[in-house]
């Protein structure tokens, strides 16, 4: 689903009327961004955000779920959830052939994926707070993670790192905490719904409008 720029929210924000926090879900491809977006949206609205696939770059456009109210104890926050395409420094159409796609389909997917990366980067101007999703079974010290966090810091955008896939045996969420000690890290399994209350509590405490 392609979305258009929300002119009304932008216009109102010029006068200080920002009704909702734009919560962007960022990360490399296949770290579980859409699974997490679906889990959050399902928990609070009963509806999903987008389709999940084992083929990388399934999300190639920004997917949005608006006005999700998260309630934790006495706190209530209203968010627009933005599920971003995965950020990558390389996209080789040949990787999609392994999943049974034809050469034509693979090339089309690769082209759309490159556009998705550009769109996700462009949206950094619009998000208030970011959930930086990392796969806890993988080495967290990747250039994408380093560049993403550096960029968010430079733009003064609050970040919560989500160490996803902790239900898997190979998961090492402590490696993420060691690699990025200056950020709040929440260990979750978006797929199984493990530790989601801690994530909601962290979102309620850390999410805010960007400076």
């Amino acid at each position, binding site marked *: 689903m392609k979305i258009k720029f929300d002119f009304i929210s932008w216009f109102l924000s010029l006068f200080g009327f920002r009704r909702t926090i734009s919560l962007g879900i960022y990360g490399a491809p296949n770290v579980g961004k859409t699974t997490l977006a679906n889990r959050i949206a399902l928990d609070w609205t009963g509806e999903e955000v987008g389709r999940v696939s084992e083929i990388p770059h399934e999300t190639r456009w920004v997917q949005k779920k608006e006005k999700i109210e998260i309630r934790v104890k006495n706190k209530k926050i209203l968010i627009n959830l933005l599920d971003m395409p995965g*950020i*990558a*420094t*390389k*996209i*080789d*159409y*040949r990787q999609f052939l392994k999943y049974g796609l034809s050469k034509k389909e693979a*090339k089309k997917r*690769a082209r759309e994926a*490159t*556009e998705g*990366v*550009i769109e996700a*980067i462009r949206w*950094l101007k619009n998000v208030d707070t970011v959930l930086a999703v990392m796969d806890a079974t993988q*080495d967290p*010290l*990747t*250039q994408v993670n*380093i*560049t993403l966090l*550096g*960029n968010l*810091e*430079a733009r003064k955008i609050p970040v919560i790192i989500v160490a996803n896939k902790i239900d898997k045996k190979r998961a090492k969420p402590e490696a993420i905490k060691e*690699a990025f000690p200056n950020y709040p890290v929440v260990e979750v399994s978006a797929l199984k719904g493990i530790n989601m209350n801690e994530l909601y509590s962290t979102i309620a405490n850390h999410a805010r409008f960007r400076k």
Partner: protein
Amino acid sequence: MKFKKGLRFDFVSSSVIEEKEKEKRINFILNKVKDGTILVTDCVFTPQDEMDLIKETMRRVDSGFPGIEVASLKKAPKGLQALLETFSDSTNKIKNFFAMLRGKKENKTPTKIGITLIGPARYIKKIKRNPNSFSILAEA
């Protein structure tokens, strides 16, 4: 200089990178990398420059050029150097602001002390990063 076999590494001084405006700098890097060269330089780009490099890379991806691999190490500034870096960042922001008011393009962006390697993804098979080092496995 063209090589028929093997991997070509170009070691480029940070002064060559720094003297170029952002657009020309990204073009300089990507033209080399798309040509199959692994570029090594003694500086680290700003996070914004890194994102712009990724964006421009995505625009150039095709069946023969799947993209880039990047690895960098930044030297953490200490004491007076940290102060000078902060001062330099601020003065550059002011310079860029006035350049923008005069309708000129963004001024040269300063880089940080460190090391950066940028190479074609089709040759760089694996990068292993540690907080203070990185290893590259590359194959032509």
